[in-house]
């Protein structure tokens, strides 16, 4: 962004983020209004129609998003400051992206195996622990979770082929 071209790395300004968020909220409010209008937002034969309450909720979202948007557009980028610096943003993504992969993996190989991999890989990668140490933490944590959910509280969690090998 132009407001921090003097800084190294790609950082995101608060002003940009404010505008983007307000626009997304605006779109969300508009969708709510549109869908409520579709199913009827007036007065039916049996009282207010299903869409009437959400319609006004959507309207309020749109109005407040517009006010926020106007405020953001009028503010100066320098005063608004930085939303997130390049280095910090990398750290945030370092948690977020593995989390997304982790949740995607749960569907295929079950929650326990994914969790062992997630904790161990994160420790090696971000914490610079040795592979042995990382698994020495990840495996007991998951054995404990397995005992707690599957055996003590009898709440089944998603399981995959590895658990099936042990007969679960």
């Amino acid at each position: 962004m132009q407001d921090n071209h003097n800084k190294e790395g790609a950082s995101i300004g608060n002003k940009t983020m404010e505008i983007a968020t307000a626009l997304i909220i605006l779109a969300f409010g508009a969708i709510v209004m549109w869908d409520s209008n579709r199913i009827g937002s007036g007065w039916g034969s049996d009282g207010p129609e299903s869409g009437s309450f959400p319609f006004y909720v959507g309207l309020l979202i749109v109005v407040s998003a517009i006010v926020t948007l106007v405020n953001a557009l009028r503010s100066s980028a320098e005063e608004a400051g930085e939303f997130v610096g390049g280095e910090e943003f990398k750290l945030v993504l370092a948690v977020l992206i593995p989390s997304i992969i982790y949740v995607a993996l749960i569907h295929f190989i079950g929650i326990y195996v994914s969790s062992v991999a997630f904790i161990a890989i994160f420790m090696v990668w971000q914490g610079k622990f040795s592979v042995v140490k990382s698994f020495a933490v990840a495996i007991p944590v998951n054995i404990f979770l397995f005992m707690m959910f599957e055996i003590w509280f009898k709440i089944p969690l998603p399981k995959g082929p590895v658990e099936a090998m042990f007969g679960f």
Partner: protein
Amino acid sequence: MEELSLLFNGFAIAITPYNIAMMFVGTILGVLIGTLPGLGGANGVAILLPLTFSMEPTSAIIMLSCIYWGALFGGAITSILFNIPGEPWSVATTFDGFPLAQKGSPGEALTAAFTSSFIGAFFAVLVITFLAPMVAKFALKFGPAEFFAVQLLTFCSFVGMSKEPPFKTIAAMMIGFALASVGMDSVTGQLRLTFGSEEMMRGFDFLIAVIGLFGLGEILMTMEEGLAFKGTEAKINARVVFQTWAKLPQYWATSLRSSLIGCWMGITPGGATPASFMAYGIAKKFAKNPEGFGKGELEGIIAPETAAHAAGTSALLPMLTLGIPGSPTAAVLLGGLLIWGLQPGPLLFVEKADFVWGLIASMYLGNLAGLIVVLTTVPYFAAILKIPFSIIAPVILVICAIGSYTVANAEFDMILMLIFGVIGYVFKKLSYPLAPMVLALVLGKMAEGSFRQALLSSQGDLSIFWSNGLVGGISGLAILLLISPLLAKLWSLAKGGNKAAA
């Protein structure tokens, strides 16, 4: 004194060996949750809620509310020893708690914080004991219009009292309402905002939102702030505890003021966080040596801790009597009650008196258990923060994923949790408040229900919300609170104008 006999009856229900064990388990878990980054009262209770489904409701709610007390206590530990507020309401505790610990008296700071928390909570429980039955009795007269007016009051006071920009508060709140209306309309059976998706038909469970917003969102924030926890050793022993207790009575006025502020802010949903700041500011104003504040003044720990704990506790009063929670954690507890088939509100006091009074009695005992737990185990909890964040972060994320799955045994909910995590992170950075969004998500269906019922009885005439003194008074107060930031601005402008003229 009808309340007293009911309360003793409640003690008889709460004091069973099993329930007392649950109290200690709850407070220990709560302190743990309060100290760990990414786990707080609200999402901690949300994650543990499914585990209690098989328990008896009274024992379950006793354990869950004790987790809440524990989390309130736990927030102080990280603030004082590490200068990291474990919870937003303990930010004000860092001002004097951390300097005092740095000066070499961490034990004194911790004892003062824990004891003040206990006093604040005790005061609030007394208020609940005597005020709640009155409020409940009064609220029995409420019709749908009055209930909607009270809900309006709740949400307007968020806009009026929040430090965040009012339009951002409204936006966050309305997003909560919109998300609450997703799924099947319970009145007409029509599908709303599902866009043909089967996963959306179930609607959004607010527990998922809480786990994502406060769990993953918090972890992302902590990641960004860097991972170095540098703190003071938690040195505490019986001698320090008694020495500090001997000093506390001289601050009785501060304690009383802070308790009152806390109760007021807890019942009207201002929340624990503003209460702690307000109490700190007022204590400084009244103090004999305001210069000492910020450098390790004992009074500067007592004031915010008392107020935060009083507010956190009294937030349960509107939750029990009106079904309107005063804080996100109270909202999660309300969600739990609904799952057990207990509808909070005035009728709860009539129909489930045993449950209500057992819970109130457990508040006295739970806070006492909490005080004992934190005073004796604080060094162990402080040691947890020495574990590197690169271990804590993935473990907490695993717990969040499991927690969001167990709410409805749906894998889709884990994806929703991730989305809410990102929303929580962005909203926090742009100062969109999360609490009103969560409360709107919880109360959305109820607020809409009472709104529609009221309009149905008046044939669509909005004047029903002004039709009598009671509903008109509540609605009027709501509007007044809504525009109070505007009024304050006008007032200061007018004052400034007068000065310029003179």
